């Protein structure tokens, strides 16, 4: 045993003499941190851990994935369903990415609220903001590599948005798809961006970000009423480290380690029990699609559906420009109070951003603006909602035909009756209570408010059938499943 230990020590000495491991490790592990460093400081290291795992899982996924538009989907199908632990590996990569995006936002919010970006750590914030943009780019390009219908149309939609950039829009869009439309070079370019270009940039900026953690030190927990003054801060910080500091190892690093463990266990559990994101149907511009981005971009999708159409070109370009622009000017306010209890505006901004993002994500999943067009299982056809027969069997023959027309004429894509149909237009479950036959006829013929005119589409008999059916929709008749009515 002693001989073994002796040998290990000898080997270490030999290596240390030539590599200087001890010096670097001591400088890193033993660098002093303020004793006030608490559980709000653990998120950054979790993001770093996830990034390292993303590189590892990505590297191994790349051993099977074929980045060519004619085989990418098949290779993913193989990974997911035939390769040993393939779906778990995809799950690790997907849930790792999701956790990374989520934790970056929490990491940023924590340091924003504690004013850690103030003097002398402005560049810590700037490099972090660049890393946020790069991470979102990774999340987006990663979703595209799935090469299903969502991916194909996300590229098209991405190009359409880029095309709205003033003056150079067309060029940006063409650069994005590597051509004048999605083509044979698009996927390989996205792949190269995802595995080389952006990770390379990220490694560079992570290097700077970490170097700054050591060089400028971890910020102390803010004290209300103790503002940052660039003239005196650095001396004060040194004083804190001297009087009330402790080495990063072992106390502070243990908090990081515990939180990292929780994150990793969660990601692994999700990878095992849920697996990779469903593959969906293969990219195919010739069959119908219901495209939708992953959660980390669905809020943008929701914004674009909810704003007035005239504002669209402005919002597409200026919203991200302003949002990211704000990130970069935040450290200009590098003086003053750090504690959130003295910065009500900072708290208000962070809360507004967090709440609106959550609401938009939820909205993005509900898609109330969208006509219901379900795809059949092979994705070759679009299905329009149908009313269950028992909903109208007891009605007159005319009204029964009207109920069927609700499906044929795609009324139910936008209107809800009972539990069936879309939320795009007013709910018609009790429309008979609020509109007369004449009013119904008028609405159907004229359309308006987003509804197409049916005047030149319906035969007079069909119109009467529809009206006859709709008149029977009332909240007072218990045999009809009535949902909450909304005003037209």
């Amino acid at each position, binding site marked *: 045993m002693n001989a073994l230990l002796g040998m290990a020590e000898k080997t270490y000495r030999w290596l240390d003499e030539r590599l200087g491991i001890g010096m670097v490790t001591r400088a890193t592990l033993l660098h002093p941190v303020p004793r006030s460093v608490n559980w709000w400081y653990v998120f950054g290291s979790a993001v770093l851990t996830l990034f390292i795992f993303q590189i590892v899982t990505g590297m191994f996924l790349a051993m099977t994935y074929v980045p060519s538009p004619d085989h990418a989907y098949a290779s993913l199908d193989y990974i997911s369903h035939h390769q040993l632990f393939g779906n778990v590996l995809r799950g690790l990569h997907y849930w790792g990415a999701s956790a990374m995006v989520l934790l970056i936002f929490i990491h940023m919010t924590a340091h924003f609220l504690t004013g850690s970006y103030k003097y002398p750590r402005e560049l810590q914030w700037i490099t972090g903001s660049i890393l946020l943009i790069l991470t979102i780019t990774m999340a987006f390009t990663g979703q595209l590599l799935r090469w299903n219908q969502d991916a194909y149309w996300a590229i098209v*939609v991405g190009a*359409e948005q880029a095309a709205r950039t003033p003056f150079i829009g067309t060029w940006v869009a063409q650069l994005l798809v590597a051509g004048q439309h999605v083509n044979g070079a698009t996927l390989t370019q996205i792949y190269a961006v995802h595995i080389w270009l952006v990770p390379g940039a990220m490694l560079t900026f992570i290097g700077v970000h970490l170097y700054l953690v050591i060089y400028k030190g971890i910020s102390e927990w803010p004290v209300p009423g103790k503002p940052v003054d660039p003239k005196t801060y650095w001396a004060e910080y040194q004083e804190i480290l001297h009087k009330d500091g402790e080495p990063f190892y072992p106390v502070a690093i243990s908090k990081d380690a515990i939180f990292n463990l929780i994150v990793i266990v969660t990601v692994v559990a999700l990878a095992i029990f849920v697996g990779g994101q469903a593959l969906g149907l293969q990219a195919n511009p*010739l069959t119908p699609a219901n495209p939708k981005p992953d959660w980390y971009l669905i809020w943008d999708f929701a914004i674009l*559906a909810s704003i007035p*159409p005239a504002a669209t070109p402005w919002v597409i370009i200026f919203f991200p420009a302003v949002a990211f622009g704000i990130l970069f000017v935040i450290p200009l306010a590098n003086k003053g109070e750090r504690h959130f209890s003295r910065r009500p505006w900072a708290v208000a901004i962070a809360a507004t951003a967090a709440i609106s993002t959550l609401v938009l994500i939820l909205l993005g999943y509900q898609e109330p603006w969208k006509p219901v067009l379900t795809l059949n299982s092979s994705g070759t056809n679009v299905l329009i909602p149908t009313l269950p027969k028992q909903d109208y069997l007891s009605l007159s023959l005319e009204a029964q035909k009207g109920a069927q027309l609700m499906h044929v004429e795609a009324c139910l894509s936008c209107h809800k009756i009972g539990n069936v149909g879309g939320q795009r237009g007013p709910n018609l479950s009790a429309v008979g209570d609020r509109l007369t036959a004449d009013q119904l006829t008028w609405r159907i013929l004229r*359309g308006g408010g987003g509804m197409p005119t049916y005047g030149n589409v319906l035969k007079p008999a069909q119109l009467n059938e529809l009206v006859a059916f709709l008149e029977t929709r009332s909240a007072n008749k218990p045999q009809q499943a009535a949902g909450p009515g909304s005003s037209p």
Partner: protein
Amino acid sequence: MNLTRKVFSREGFLTLLLLSVGGVASVAYAIPIVAFVLSPLIKQEPKVWRDVGGDSSFKLGETVQVNFKYADQFNSSWAGPTQYTAAWLRKLSPGKYVAFASYCTHLGCPVHWVSAPQIFLCPCHGSVFTADGSVAGGPAPRPLFRYLTRVRNGRVEIRTEPQPTVGFTTA
């Protein structure tokens, strides 16, 4: 001048030399790389006519989906599904057609034709277009884009175009 003296010193000269060597090497590598990446902007794709079916096979007043190949001349052997695109073709009168791009004019999602009510529905944000391509509702800012069509020797042909808003030249 202190700076002038420094530049003309042995150390200054060698520093300038090092920077120039680095600069020249970077530029020499950057030119082909930038050109390589920008080639889609420089090399414009030709527009070609694609046969989408016989004139007699389309019914008057009916809107149907037709599929055709882009004019991609270089990388089509591995391009898989990306070589093709779809259009909604409507026969207006014998020998006269209109072909709408399937891309919604809002953000480019594929619009779907619903034949009974004669409307195109967009699955992304719910834009609605009438049979003639004009906007009936939703956030779409303009009517559906149109391809050029022609009938030759009894065959209907559509002229290829880039992805709309990336540069649709016909409508």
